[in-house]
């Protein structure tokens, strides 16, 4: 047997080939996460209660990196790894401040400034999500509004796609973006969940849908001659006798109304 080996390494070329073959060793599976942990890029996770049940929240040194609805911790770890390609560990010590912030934000008690890790997204996707963050609780905006606001008015479908890939639903309120005709539309966590979350935030999804059925897109006030999206908090203040309903932007503009500067239902050109 020894002789065989000697013969194998007898030729210089074979020897080099053996060296080369031997040179390839796979790094252990936890290598990447060990390195990421050492430079502070590793994710940890914890659970939070929300209007749609318990969710898993992941965060790292850059901010919150994921919110997912999973059956259990193992399922969450698996889907996280699948989506982001890195492993994740349960928080050794629950990050109290973060949990409190998340709970208060979701419960609508306080608005918390939160950081997000949107590194896995394209520039367009992250622009969409940052714009979405500006929609106040209890209000909704159409997909087309986001597209126009970020300077890509034709990319309405792309906005929908970007929102469906939102890694941090609930915290980045992609549920507050609805179809342009006023219907509630789809949601990363499911259509029913979207209605439930909106309802918990004080938006009546049935009212939205009935407005959509009637074709009403905007509310105007005949005292101020301003028109708004129906959920804009300025629109909520219009009393019934002064409320004017519009079916389109053109109709409102032609009646001599100007768009609200807060909810910006049309570009203020």
């Amino acid at each position, binding site marked *: 047997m*020894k002789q065989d080996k000697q013969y194998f390494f007898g030729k210089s070329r074979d020897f080099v080939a*053996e060296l080369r073959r*031997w040179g*390839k060793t796979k790094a252990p599976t936890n*290598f990447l996460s060990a390195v990421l942990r050492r430079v502070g890029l590793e994710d940890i996770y914890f659970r939070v209660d929300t209007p749609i049940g318990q969710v898993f929240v992941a965060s790292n040194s850059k901010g919150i990196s994921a919110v997912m609805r999973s059956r259990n911790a193992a399922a969450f770890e698996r889907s996280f790894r699948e989506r982001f390609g890195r492993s994740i560990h349960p928080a050794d010590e629950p990050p109290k401040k973060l949990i409190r912030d998340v709970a208060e934000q979701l419960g609508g008690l306080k608005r918390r400034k939160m950081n997000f890790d949107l*590194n896995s997204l394209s520039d367009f996707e992250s622009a969409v999500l940052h714009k979405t963050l500006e929609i106040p609780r209890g209000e909704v905006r159409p997909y087309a509004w986001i597209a126009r606001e970020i300077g890509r008015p034709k990319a309405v479908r792309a906005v929908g796609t970007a929102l469906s890939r939102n890694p941090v639903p609930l915290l980045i309120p992609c549920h507050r973006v609805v179809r342009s005709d006023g219907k509630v539309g789809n949601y990363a966590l499911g259509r029913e969940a979207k209605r439930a979350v909106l309802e918990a935030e004080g938006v009546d999804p049935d009212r939205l849908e009935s407005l959509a059925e009637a074709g009403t897109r905007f509310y105007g006030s005949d005292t101020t001659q301003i028109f708004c999206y129906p959920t804009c908090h300025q629109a909520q203040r219009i009393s019934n006798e002064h409320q004017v309903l519009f079916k389109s932007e053109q109709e409102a503009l032609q009646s001599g109304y100007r768009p609200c500067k807060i909810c910006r239902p049309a570009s203020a050109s």
Partner: protein
Amino acid sequence: MEEKTLAEELTKNLDRGFEKMVRTYQDRMYSFAIRLTGHVQDGEDVAQEGFVRAYRALKSYPGERISSMDLKPWLYRIVLNVFRNRRRGYRPTILPLNEGKAGPGLGAREDASLSPQSLLEVSEGQKQLAKALASLPGKYRVPVILRHMEGLSYGEMSEMIGQPAGTLKSNVHRGLRMLREAWVRQTKEDER
């Protein structure tokens, strides 16, 4: 080709690019470090430390510098430096550690730490090869590993080690010959 996009990604988004970089080079750096140290555990530590240092360095570099970088040889050099610094830390040694001038340097000291269990190698032949490699002086060992196990070009090696390609070529050649001799010697010893 892949290098270019990776460097671009690092300038655009360091953290995301870094993750990708580790993914791309972890196998190479890991096996390189194992060959250097002769230990699986030490090798893993050295390779990890190398990436951590790379991250800190990249963080402090301006974008133009990163985009013009040749990542692969750069990473190899970091791992090599980590390895050398560690050796230096372990024992304040009488042997010079700088490459080129090292007499019976790096290699000779490996032997003590080179227990058969510490090696990943499965086959007998590879175990002996590891032993033979460990007995080689660092001056020859590093170029042989880089050229024939990691598959770097002489250009890359020259940039990385800071020696002319010609010097490296002759060192690889001599190293390879010594390695074969050492291997034959080893086999004979084992037969006795």
